[in-house]
């Protein structure tokens, strides 16, 4: 009423509500968080598309030949590994064969599915976007692999090898979340992960037990521990790094490591039931 009657109200000089909202003058674009970007970055970035990331000047472009060092190691699991609960699938979908949870997989004292990555120490380099595709399969109503690490710019190609339908429900933050159905026999779902992203799950709502973890890095120095808990990070440049190991339920651990050109260092992370 108030605004509908503005005409009359204006006549009586009684209008109480806000006046017209004429388009404000376009402003200089500043985010307000930090000082305005330099002209240089503005122009370079303008030429690239939404993805193109330009780090601060002073860094050099990375190429594979620059790294010669290697960090390898193992993830240990101390104590008795909890038994993985069996999942009864047939009452939800008789086409699912059944299986067990894959949250904590321990074999020979090594913990699988831990993402190891370099966290600090790469400031001097500028990394190109990743290329190619990473496969995520759905088989036996489980995701294979259960943990997926990839580089920004890569595409995740999700396939369905089951005789049943799945929906791929991604909870990504910086990359667009999606929830796409994938019936048996349907083609692969290709999703480009163009931004780095913290660990997020991909789930299937039809089969509530199905989930996998995906991490997207903006550099190539990451890996996932194999079934015996071993990992290798090759082609690192010399330097001091902070390594981070991250498990979906047991949490993060950090370690500092310094490698020389051509050298190899070993790092061991150790998880237990009471791990942080």
């Amino acid at each position, binding site marked *: *009423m*108030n*605004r*509908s*009657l*503005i*005409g*009359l*109200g204006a006549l*009586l000089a*009684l*209008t*109480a*509500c806000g006046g017209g909202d004429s388009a404000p003058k376009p402003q200089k674009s500043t985010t307000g968080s930090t000082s305005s970007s330099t002209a240089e970055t503005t122009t370079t970035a303008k030429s690239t598309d939404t993805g193109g990331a330009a780090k601060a000047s002073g860094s050099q472009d990375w190429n594979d030949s620059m790294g010669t060092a290697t960090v390898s190691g193992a993830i240990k699991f101390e104590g008795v590994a909890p038994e993985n609960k069996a999942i009864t699938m047939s009452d939800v979908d008789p086409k699912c064969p059944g299986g067990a949870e894959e949250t904590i997989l321990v074999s020979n004292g090594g913990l699988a599915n831990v993402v190891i990555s370099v966290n600090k120490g790469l400031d001097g380099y500028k990394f190109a976007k990743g290329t190619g595709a990473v496969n995520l399969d759905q088989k036996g109503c489980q995701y294979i692999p259960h943990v997926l690490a990839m580089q920004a710019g890569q595409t995740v190609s999700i396939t369905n090898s089951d005789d049943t339908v799945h929906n791929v429900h991604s909870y990504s933050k910086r990359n667009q979340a999606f929830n796409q159905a994938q019936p048996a026999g349907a083609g692969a779902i290709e999703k480009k992960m163009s931004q780095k992203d913290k660990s997020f799950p991909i789930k299937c709502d039809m089969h509530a037990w199905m989930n996998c973890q995906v991490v997207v890095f903006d550099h190539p120095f990451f890996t996932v521990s194999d079934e015996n808990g071993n990992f290798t990070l090759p082609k690192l440049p010399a330097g001091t790094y902070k390594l981070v190991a991250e498990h979906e339920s047991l949490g993060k651990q950090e370690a500092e490591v310094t490698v020389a050109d051509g050298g190899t260092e070993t790092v061991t992370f150790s998880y237990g039931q009471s791990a942080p």
Partner: protein
Amino acid sequence: MSGQHIHAEPTNFFRKHVFSVDHKVIAKQFLWFGLIWLGIGGVMAMMIRWQLANPGEPVPVIGSMLFPRTNGVLDPATYNTLFTMHGTIMIFLGLTPLMIGAIGNWSIPLMIGARDMIFPLLNCLSFWAMFLGGAVGFISLFVPLGATEAGWTGYPTLSTTINGVGSGETLWAIAVFLIGASSIMGGINYMTTVIRLRAPGMTWQRLPLTVWGIFLTSVLNVLFVPVIGSAMLLLIMDRVFGTTFFIPASIMQGAGGGDPILYQHLFWIFGHPEVYILILPAWGIIGDLLSFFSRKPAFGYRAQVGAMVAVTLLSAVVYGHHMFTTGLSAMLGESFMLLTMIISVPAEILFFNWLHTLWKGNLRLTTPMLFSMGVIFVFGLGGLTGIYLATIGTDIFLHDTYFVVGHFHLTMAASALFATFAGIYFWFPKMFAREMNEFLGKTHFWFTVIPLVTVFCLMFVMGYAGMPRRYYDHTSAEYLRSLQHLNKYATHAAFLLGAAQLVFVYNFIRSRWWGKPASQNPWEVGTLDWTMETPVPHYNFKEIPEVFTGPHEFSNPDIPDGKDWISMTEKLKA
């Protein structure tokens, strides 16, 4: 005699025309004020009818000016505001000032032979309190978050902050409070004046029925308007200060919180007497006018007064019939049904006496007479349909349908409005010393009464067919779609009704300034107001007259000079 002194006439413009304490000036102020609000309320009614007949179509002519944001379409919120304000305006700002403010102020001192009201300053205050109330009500239309949308009854919790936090509803409550204060001031003044300032010989049994009606209305005003005042205070506190008189604490358990039903009780303790507040002066006026223009004494004067007194006494104890569906207990429901039926007895007595007054009279069919007879007709229709609503069995179905709308428009609105018109046509020559045009007056009557009865009788049909009131759009629910044609007919009739009022406006304005100068007693009646010269001098009576005969001594064989009327100050032969 105190209050009967003659002070010098004020010469200052403000003292004379604005803050005057002269009852005649105040009566005219009330008259203009009431007429303007009646016009505003009427335009709102036209917009409501337009929306009902053509849901969602832009209101022609004034729509785009009033509602530019929607290109002239009434949105549901605006529609709710319109019917809320239509009710509030018509009752509190239209009929109350016209009937009680204007006619009451004009006729009481003149008819009882007083020089002014007993408390002239209070009288002036009464008008300005109402003016302020009107202004606040008007401002409430333009505040942010919308004007009031809770209906003129303003039931909580719809009228509390649960529904809206805007200030429109608060301002509405303040406006009703102020208007109530004005009514109380007027009521106290009228009552005291009638009791204390009657001229010598003006016994209670010689009091014109008009004065009786307004006197009894004042009693009701003084007794029951404070109730709505308090209810509005509580509502304002709920809205502004966060109290919880009417807001239940939790949804299912009543304990600990307020009670929305309490408000309904308070409202209708006032609300039902309010109906009689508006109708009692109307009864009084037509009781007089029917006698005046039938040239015949008011039949059963004492019975009429008795009936009005009985209605006054009963008015507060029948209010429960407004609440049959709110969950009254069986005992209360039956009691209120019985009491409501009983209150029809005085109405039947009045009808009998009015009709008997006409019987074997010498009817002068002037405009005021036509309107008085119109009151009998529309009040008959409205009153009889009251039986449906007093009976719980039928009321359960008809409650809050258009049947109710038709009913109360015929009883409270149309009857009171007709009596007001009758009063205006009747007293106009004395008020403005000019005559109103009779032909235009009669045109006005016939073009008012026919569409009016059509509109509200169609509403009876709609209500009987199950159409709930206060719906923005009756085509939204499948059940009501097949009734839409009735809405169209009603709207056509309503527009005709609205157009007919333009005749009145033209007649009123033309006669006010350019009309034929009126003689001292054009209607040939004997009450005190018509015995003084026209225009009425300052302080009315130089000498307080002494009264010897009753107000309705028409066609008395004992009247000297072969006239059929006698002034109250004259004596009958022998």
